[in-house]
């Protein structure tokens, strides 16, 4: 039976009828399989949740210990069964704990990739190519204009700016889960050993990362700095929304920096008031999306949230059958980790 008859998108999320489970549902459901901890994929209040242990830990940090009644940590690569449906989680390389989900039923293999990238990320194992009949892929950066530069290059831009503007506090807007920790680690890899200062919203998740064994170096909450003037020439990381917020006014001579895949487009950087845009993304850029489709080599590609038109067009040009899969909650471009 073709997957389009048993795997459907509805107002809640992607529903597998024979397995009676949702993937990344936006409303409370009986059984939820969650690919990763970003708020546009992971919600609280389900009866049963299946996810990687890291994702469960992130959900607990965000929503409390009781974020779901039954919490099942899955083992990557180990198959579990829901009625006649076999399900296996594989690494997706997006953020800590992120997974793709392979669903096998009625002779078909479907991979739901969730969000993923192909670049090196020290916080998570790399994306695994899982052969399948249907690949359900994201298309956040699904346009050929998106070619993410190496992260080292972007971090060097930040370090260079610190040297040129030592009198300014470099306030980096970065999504609290994933992006923030990736920026910190990339700074550490580039040899930046000074303390990095954090907005309150980044603290809990950085703490979770530390508990899960990831060394982020010395982190200091901005709230614990008595004399804010001493933050001159330092790096402060905050959620992007805090850049325009009253909160940032307490910082001395702020140079607004934004770390996001969207920063490649000038007008988007301008809209965020970034003086220094850093193109750092936890999603695939265009060449990586095409590389993935080629390597997975499915019979069909279903394209979800993002700029699906271009990716469908290109997939068909490459000889794959392609269709759009409209999922709730994903259209807002900047909700998730970008």
């Amino acid at each position: 039976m073709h997957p389009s008859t048993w795997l459907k998108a509805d107002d809640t999320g992607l529903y597998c009828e024979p397995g009676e489970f949702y993937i990344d549902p936006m409303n409370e459901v009986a059984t939820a399989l969650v690919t990763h901890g970003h708020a546009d994929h992971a919600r609280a209040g389900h009866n049963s949740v299946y996810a990687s242990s890291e994702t469960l830990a992130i959900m607990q940090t965000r929503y409390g210990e009781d974020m779901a009644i039954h919490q099942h940590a899955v083992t990557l690569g180990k198959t579990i069964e829901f009625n006649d449906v076999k399900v296996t989680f594989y690494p997706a390389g997006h953020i800590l704990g992120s997974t793709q989900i392979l669903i096998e039923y009625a002779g078909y293999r479907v991979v739901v990739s969730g969000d993923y990238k192909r670049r090196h990320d020290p916080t998570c194992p790399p994306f695994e190519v899982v052969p399948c009949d249907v690949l359900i892929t994201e298309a956040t950066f699904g346009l050929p204009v998106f070619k993410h530069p190496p992260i080292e290059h972007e971090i060097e831009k930040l370090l260079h700016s610190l040297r040129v503007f030592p009198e300014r506090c470099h306030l980096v807007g970065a999504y609290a889960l994933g992006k923030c920790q990736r920026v910190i680690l990339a700074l550490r890899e580039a040899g930046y050993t000074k303390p990095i200062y954090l907005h309150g919203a980044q603290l809990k998740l950085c703490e979770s990362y530390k508990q899960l064994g990831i060394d982020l170096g010395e982190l200091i909450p901005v709230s614990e700095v008595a004399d804010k003037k001493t933050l001159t020439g330092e790096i402060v990381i905050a959620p992007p929304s805090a850049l325009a917020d009253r909160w940032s006014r307490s910082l001395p001579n702020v140079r607004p920096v934004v770390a996001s895949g969207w920063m490649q487009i000038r007008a988007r950087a301008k809209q965020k008031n970034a003086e220094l845009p850093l193109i750092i993304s936890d999603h695939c850029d265009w060449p990586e999306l095409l590389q993935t489709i080629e390597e997975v080599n499915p019979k069909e590609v279903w394209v979800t949230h993002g700029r699906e038109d271009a990716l469908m067009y290109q997939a068909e040009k490459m000889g794959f059958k392609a269709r759009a899969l409209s999922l709730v909650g994903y259209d807002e471009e900047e909700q998730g980790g970008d």
Partner: protein
Amino acid sequence: MEAFSNLLEQLYYTAGTKAKAQLIADYIANTPDPDRGWAIAAMAGTLRFDFFKRNTVKKLITEHTDPALFAMSYDYVGEVSETVAHLWPHSEPTDSLPSLTEVVETFASVSKQKVSDTLAHYLTIMTPSQRWALLKLGTRGLRIGVSARSIKQILADYGNKDIKDIETLWHAVTPPYVDMLSWLEGKADKPDIENAVTFHPVMLSHPIEDSDIDAFTKDTWQIENKYDGIRVQLVVKSNTTFDDRHNNNRAPDEDQPEKALFSRTGDDISHSFPDLLETINGNMVLDGELLVIHNVEDRYDSTEGSAKTSANNEKTLIDKSGSQVSLATQPDVDTFNALQQRLNKKKPSKALQSSAPVGLIVYDALELDGKDLTDKTLKERREQLNKWFNENTSPRLFLSETLTATSSQSLRKLHAQVCQNRAVEGLMIKRLDSKYIPGRPKGKWFKWKRDPLVVDAVMMYAQRGHGKRSSFYSDYTFGAWEDNQLLPIGKAYSGFTDEELKKLDNWVRRNAVGRFGPVREVKKELVLEVAFDAAHPSSRHKSGVALRFPRIHRIRWDKPADEADTLANVKALIEQ
């Protein structure tokens, strides 16, 4: 080219006029001639030619990439130059990019057939941000958030001069401004521009506020009709001798014509209006409104009195009573719609010139008989202008009529009265003691436009915006009801705040029902109160009506779509 590209990159992301001025001043101080002069020209918008056309760029990119992917990318990015800068598929970086001057000179001299290849070569050796700089420069689409006026101020500060000196010089000097820059650096005399036929920056008005109307007092203000044409400046030096014009130190340029008509922003639009220019003689700079005026020729034909020929072959018209006609004849002014067919015509046909003849309603003079009047008050300038009109006759020049009001109350009455006339847009109210100050000085000149017309229309389609609004659905097509069907009547992309734009964008995303390329069709549920200046009959639109300058006046989140206006309501607003 690297330095120029770096400058643009920094300007783009730097907020604040002061910081931008600092960056530009540093660049001017540290960049040799003639590169810096070309950069100034690029930033101030005074480059004389496009290096290549936008179409050349589009053609080139579709030859080198998939056109469908380009179209989708462009729709998202919202700007051709940036889309091309990212999409260009070839990259052979070099350590020795050509200088800005080399780029300018190459495109100035390259043959038409080679433009595309030259551009392709440059794109290949440049980084994405350098490509962007080149494309913006080459199509003269540079927007760096620094006005031409600010550039002049930066130059004035750089040379420790008054901005007025730069202003007067500005339209008579040409890029790369080597003479002007060496004068600013104290290495040369000020360039001599006395007899040049050049544009003089104009004085602009502010919209009037209620408090200004309340403060109105008699005898302080000059009141005139605000005509619905285009603001122009007529510069005539046809009484100067050949030697006067050729013995100055201006940059060697093509022979300067003796007279020219400029738009408000200084574009030379003379070629479109030969019928006006051929009747003009003198030595003056006039400020006025260009309009289609039907009785320009009648002033000759209908006059039974004798037309006598003066020494300089100008006709002076005498009507039956023996007084001059030029002041007495009222111009038979047509609407802006009539003028529109004359705009942007490089060579207007004889037929068009006679069916839509243009004339000038003069309201001010910056120079008369070779004398500079900008330091005189409006009252004095007006007296000189009256005198000139008494002594000279020109069939296509009319003196702007002055109106009277004795109190703020009678001013309001007058406004209501003039707005009855569809060829008039409202009132101009100018302080009699105001000198002619280029720019928009506060409290001197006011415009009081007629109240806009409004209709309640229903949003039908939305499209993403460009530039600052890239990725936001900010261009809306709206329609009016005919029976049970909506017919599109116009498109608007202004009038809302940034906050409202976010809400509208969100509404479009949640209510999209279809897609035609970059255009999203939306549920026919949102009522937009649309304001516009006039409605005209139109055969190009299915609805049969075209709106002038439509903008979103209010968003009627509360109003059910079936209560929006009908097409018949809209058509009733078409001017007679």
